[in-house]
């Protein structure tokens, strides 16, 4: 599988602040790579560097196996992108806005603009000025514009930002179908965990400019194990019981008497019975899977995302 994006020790420093700090990411062909991070983590700065809009303070960007800054023009011709909210000339229609890109790109094929508008379901809105479009329509038009020249790579910066739930669902379906039907490699950033979880095949987590982890979702699901969670009146006594009577060593103790047991799945009845027989009050039993949120919280050292 060939590498589409590869960054090496990418850095961007503003004053004394490292917006992006020694970032090494690899995106392979055919992946939907979710670039996850809190607001201000360095996602947009990274995307701007991937598109040559800002120059790195240090480090290299390779796209399609070539150095971006030596071959910027030929590389960018193979990429479609949206950086933050897509901007349009609001006094023009959707068709006229796309005509600007088509003209500059030298796309002369008939119906290219109509086809792009059809993909994003805006083909019936061609007489309306873009200034009167909703944010969701503008996002879809941004994707149509990015697709105009049949790119091999799509770079989308928070494409669902500010959309209502229906708009989010539409954009998500669109991205998934583009990856599946057109075999486009997609690099999509978001600060919403569930969004990346539902969309991406691979994920990179950025926090305070640094890449904390890069992982395929398949592997992440293998790693995120199921567990039994007991809330008990006396966690010390409960742990001793688990160790001595059941030989359990794979457990974690959390706040308020919560104990997570990663083995003996399906044997919660026996464990519960043992607790009660030994005078330990069981307040709650859960059978849970460690979700992406738990994983992320552990990784960034606590605190909610967003």
């Amino acid at each position, binding site marked *: 599988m060939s590498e589409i994006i590869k960054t090496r020790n990418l850095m961007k420093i503003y004053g004394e602040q490292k917006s992006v700090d020694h970032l090494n990411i690899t995106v392979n062909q055919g992946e939907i790579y979710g670039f996850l991070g809190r607001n201000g983590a360095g996602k947009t700065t990274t995307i*701007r560097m991937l*598109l040559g*809009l800002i*120059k790195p303070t240090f480090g290299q960007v390779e796209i399609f196996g070539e150095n971006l800054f030596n071959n910027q023009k030929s590389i960018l011709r193979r990429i479609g992108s949206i950086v933050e909210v897509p901007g349009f000339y609001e*006094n*023009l229609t959707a068709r*006229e806005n796309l005509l600007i890109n088509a003209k500059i790109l030298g796309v002369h094929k008939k119906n290219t603009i109509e086809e792009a508008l059809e993909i994003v379901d805006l083909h019936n809105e061609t007489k309306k000025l873009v200034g009167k479009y909703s944010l969701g329509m503008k996002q879809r038009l941004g994707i149509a514009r990015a697709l105009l020249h049949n790119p091999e790579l799509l770079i989308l910066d928070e494409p669902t930002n500010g959309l209502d739930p229906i708009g989010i669902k539409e954009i998500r379906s669109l991205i998934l179908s583009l990856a599946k039907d057109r075999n486009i490699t997609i690099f999509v950033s978001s600060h919403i965990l569930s969004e990346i979880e539902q969309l991406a095949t691979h994920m990179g987590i950025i926090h305070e400019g640094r890449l904390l982890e890069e992982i395929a979702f398949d592997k992440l699901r293998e790693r995120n194990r199921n567990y039994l969670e007991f809330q008990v009146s006396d966690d010390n006594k409960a742990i001793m019981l688990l160790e001595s009577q059941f030989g359990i060593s794979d457990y974690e103790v959390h706040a308020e008497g919560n104990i997570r047991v990663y083995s003996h799945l399906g044997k919660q009845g026996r464990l519960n019975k043992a607790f009660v027989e030994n005078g330990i009050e069981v307040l709650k039993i859960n059978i849970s899977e460690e979700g992406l949120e738990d994983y992320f919280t552990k990784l960034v050292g606590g605190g909610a995302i967003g």
Partner: protein
Amino acid sequence: MQLASLLFTELLKLKRSSMFLLSIAGAAVAPLVVVVATYVNEPSTPFKELFYNVNLYTVLIIGAPLYGVVTTYLFNREYVENTIKNILTIPVSRVSFIMSKTLLLFMWIMMLTMIAWFLTLFLGLLTQFDGLDISLLVESFKEFSIGGVLLFILSTPIILVTLVMKNYVPTIIFTVVITLINVMGGSSEHRALFPWAAAGDIANHTLPSTYPPEYSYTAIIVTALTGFIALIVYFKKADIH
């Protein structure tokens, strides 16, 4: 080839633009005020004076702020409407981007200059001023054109201010200061050293004899070239946020 395509897209961007009509209204101010005021106060004034006064006011008073607003609109709207990131990632070379906009600015300034000339002619004929002949038409057209070209050449520092500040206000202040110096230095014998005032004098053949004409031409060329080089260097290196 890309420059031609870019110029086409620049023209397309002006479709339904209110700025286009506003700029025409701005260019019509000098002919309207000069012809009407002359008709009311001194109806016996020769036609030549009408052309001279309109060109004087256009180049020295109205030109800098009016063309400054047009310049800011052309360059700043890409930042305001957040379209610059799209254009530069299509990709368009940054120099071509600047050149296409500068070319459109030239066409726009010349169009406004021609509108001012034509309106002077039309209103002067309507109010029946004397002294119009072919040689006056040719000469006045030439003078208006020179004024327009010189103001266009001197727009490079204004473009630089727009690109650096990304806002209308600094450009308006800058052009108002230029106009103020033009007005305050109107009677000064050293005015030929101030590029924008020199442009007015060159267009109207009224350069004072204090300095050789080469000094004025040099002041204009140095200002324009410095502005042009600075804006290209700046824009080629600027981070786009």
